[in-house]
């Protein structure tokens, strides 16, 4: 990949294997990218947040980034704390 977001090395009895990875912008999943893989095989590009997404999030569609989801989770926790729950 031109701008990978991660790097993985698997070292086993048959030798080692290196892979670039990216992290899905919507669900934060690690997606390995095999060398010479076609773009359709490893997910897609979200045209809203303009970041790479995993195959599952590509099928779901829409744009709800993990950052936005964390903001909502944290806001809910703050609300519940303020309400004494």
């Amino acid at each position: 990949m031109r701008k990978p977001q991660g790097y993985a090395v698997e070292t086993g009895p048959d030798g080692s294997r290196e892979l670039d990875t990216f992290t899905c912008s919507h669900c934060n999943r690690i997606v390995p990218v095999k060398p010479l893989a076609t773009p359709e095989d490893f997910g897609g590009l979200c045209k809203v947040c303009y970041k790479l997404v995993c195959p599952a999030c590509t099928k779901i569609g829409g744009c709800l980034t993990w950052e936005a989801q964390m903001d909502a989770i944290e806001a809910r926790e703050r609300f519940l704390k303020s309400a004494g729950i």
Partner: protein
Amino acid sequence: MAVPRRYAEVGNQSTVSSSFKTGLTVIASTSTRGAIYFFNLGTTGTAADGVLEWRASRFTAAGTTTSVTPVALDPADPAALLSAGSNATGEPTYTGATSLFDQGLNQRATYTWIAVPGGELLIPATSSNGIGFAMLSTVSPAYTGVGNISCHHFE
């Protein structure tokens, strides 16, 4: 610009079985978000060609684990705000369909992942939330030894 503080935690699952058992949890702090940028998976049992499935997933309750104190990579840094646990005897409550990593590996293999800045696994600042690393082995010869995880995070 503030440099994020980096910490390391190490955990293991003492008895890998045919159902997922958690070896390491990284538990959120309500004060700050955390970000896992490195992890390493392996085993320390008798070498054989069994297969383990490793999974990293989000949880909303931390389960029952042996407490692990994250170690600061810079000794000048204060104690970590996030916490960690090892060798779960009561499994965390994992959120369905939130696996961040799922890979089958030969028992003899090790797997290392490191993130480029911006590619980390993010943990929200919400109590009892976090990311857990679990493993199982079902394919014969099934592995029943120790599974090991090393993880680095910054906060």
